[in-house]
């Protein structure tokens, strides 16, 4: 559970089965307070569908989602008043200026203060281009505009779905810093499949695979779980293909003496392999492949 604050969001056996029979989210339960939850999982794990259900865009086909004790499936407006949402691949209306775009979403969220729009643009460092058409913005600028619209109503729950996809390293860092700054007194759910996006800001990490929640833990606990399961060794070049098929390789570097491997395995994977300290990427691979489903 995130921090010591009162539970804000509770998911009880949430399931989403589509018309075509695909079960995107399967019997998932979770309780969250305030802080930043990093929702990790490979593509197709069900992260986006889970976030869409929490954001009241699509309804679960089973289970309940409670926010501050209220069932948002039957009373979605209760959460919508307090929600900020940045969807995956967020687009913009090219012809509008940043001010017009933000004012529009402010109006939809019932925010009438013009100064709030200016404040948000300043926070995401777009105030200098406030009156420029957003069609000419870079990907990073559009994402910052997206986070500005998500925050315009000062939400208690902020959901951001793969917000750093396609951003350059500088923009990713800027984006992480914004989320880190705002994650103190509210619940932020940050979905990604890139571990480095959340390792410095997440107070808790949830790992999803095939619609199921594999594990929820704080980053130190996740690291602790993988301790003793990460190994490094160097093998001959001609054994690499065989090793790649048989092992969970976190990283590989070719050098003059062969291929240096970093392997995630509960036991010693190869003769001569040396146990090393896991990082969060290793811990994610460990949870994904060797963690027990909830």
């Amino acid at each position, binding site marked *: 559970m995130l921090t010591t604050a009162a539970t804000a969001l509770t998911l009880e056996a949430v399931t989403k089965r589509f*018309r075509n029979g695909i079960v995107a989210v399967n019997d998932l339960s979770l309780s969250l307070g305030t802080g930043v939850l990093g929702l990790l999982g490979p593509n197709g794990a069900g992260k986006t569908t889970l976030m869409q259900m929490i954001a009241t865009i*699509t309804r679960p086909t089973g289970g309940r989602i409670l926010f501050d004790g209220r069932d948002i499936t039957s009373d979605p*407006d209760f959460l919508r008043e307090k929600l900020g949402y940045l969807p*995956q691949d967020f687009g913009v*209306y090219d*012809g*509008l200026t940043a001010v*017009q775009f933000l004012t*529009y*979403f402010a109006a939809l969220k019932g925010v009438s203060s013009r100064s709030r729009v200016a404040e948000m643009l300043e926070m995401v460092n777009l105030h200098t281009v406030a009156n420029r058409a957003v069609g000419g913005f870079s990907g990073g600028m559009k994402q910052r505009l997206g986070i500005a619209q998500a925050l315009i109503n000062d939400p208690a729950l902020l959901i951001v779905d793969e917000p750093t996809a396609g951003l350059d390293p500088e923009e990713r860092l800027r984006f992480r810093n914004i989320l880190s700054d705002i994650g103190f007194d509210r619940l932020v759910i940050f979905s990604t499949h890139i571990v480095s996006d959340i390792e410095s800001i997440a107070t808790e990490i949830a790992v999803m695979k095939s619609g199921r929640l594999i594990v929820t833990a704080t980053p130190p606990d996740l690291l602790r779980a993988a301790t003793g399961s990460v190994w490094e060794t160097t093998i001959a070049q001609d054994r690499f293909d065989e090793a790649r098929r048989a092992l969970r390789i976190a990283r590989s570097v070719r050098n003059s003496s062969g291929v240096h491997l970093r392997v995630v395995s509960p036991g010693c994977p190869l003769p001569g392999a040396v146990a090393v300290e896991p990082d969060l990427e290793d811990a994610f691979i460990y949870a994904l492949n060797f963690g027990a489903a909830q």
Partner: protein
Amino acid sequence: MTVRRVLAVARTDVRVRMARGSSAALLVALCILAYVIVPDLSTGRALMQVNGHRALYNSATIALATSSLCAVLLGMLGFYLISNTIRRDIVTRTGFVVASTPVRNAEYLAGKLLGSIAFLTLVVLVYIVNVMAMQLLRGEAPIEPLRYATIFLAAMGPAVVVVAGFALMFECVYPLSGRFGDIAYFFVWVMLLTIPASTAEAIGSGVGSYFDVFGIAFLINASKPQAIADFHNVHPEVSIGSSRFDPAQIPWRFDGVKWSWHVVGTRAASAALVIPLFVIAWLAFARFDPARVKGSTGGARGSVLARIGAPLAPLVRAVRPESWAGPGLARMALGEIALTIMLYPTVLAAALATAIAGVVVREHALRSALLPIVFVALVAALAEIPTRDRAARVDAIRSGIPRTRRLSVPAKLLGALGLALAFVIVPLARMIATSPRDALSLGIGAALIASAAVGMGTLARTPKLFAGISMLYLYIVMSSPHAADFDFAGWNGAATDGVRVAYFVAAIALAGIAVLAEWLGGRAERS
């Protein structure tokens, strides 16, 4: 419902529409339309005639005639112009954000409806200004702005409101929110056009005048009483639209609409048709739920045309269209045909059915029924060819393949022509034997519809411009069996050699527009 939210949605909708380059093109088109629709009397043509007497160019005549013509055009083209307002929010994924806000479905939809009405009203206002300018240049009486305002409000008000309502409703109701809906609306438009006209004979009492969206009954009821009185003829012939007049006849002065509560009531009742349309839209609106919205991920429903074609998948697999594509213009064109068949197997079945029907039906049925149906089917089959790469976001991938970018539009033109010919090949073969000149027209017609699909689609970056204009044009062709000028595909047997040359030139010009638009678009993206 909060007015502020409704207005915010409406204002943004209008802003987004006005920011598009196509809006500027639309305004230019309205200037040209006004210039053409109010002919200069010195050319021997007039806008309106009654019993062979041209109507004097005063404000009442020009406002009544131009508003009626505009309402009919707007009824068709206006729908395609505005029927992407919710789709836009799906494509940009801003709809997901909208869905996560406290905005109510009724507020959002009312805002979208209001935005569409405001945009169409703006279009009409620009048109009115242009028409008034034409009266200044070609009129025979002073401009009366109040008369313009009242007549346009009565004639066009219901059209603007109801067309906006239909566009919203079609976008919200799943089976109608795509190419199937675009075709289906054509039949709605025809129905709305013909029912009031057919019941307007009994002056003022026709039930159809309460459903007179495009003001046809209003036009007839407004002009006929005075014409009957002036010409002592209970069935005066009223014609609207540019036509030759006899200068020896004294011009007829139309004094204007005789307003009554009945007139106001029927116009208000026609406009009120928007209410059930809005209610249907509200009930059917999926609020961007990815499980219910077409084009979203996650088990959402596909298009109606794709679902209809699904059982034909084994037939498509048997002809292995995926192997047709390859490098070079010819293989790329084949690739376009293959992609169309794979996406919509119905196209393959329709082409085969047309070929069989082309063999078995009689010559008269071939011309009067089969070929019109074939061209309506071609509108649906060809409309997406120039825009589907961009819609599926594969245009950048395709551009990266050597020589593909340069050959893309020519290949689409050739592919569209190939598909069009596949549909008409059997009727063409029969007509070559019986009437070679009409067969030539049919070949030119196939080329015209192919280049129109690619030309308009590449220019507007949406299939809707082509769908709207071509359906309107097909209606005119079907309604004018003896007019040589409209016999673009020879099925009426009225086309002259000059008409054939004109349509051939038009086909070449539209192909040129496609190439030019792609080149300009590519240059803009590179810069």
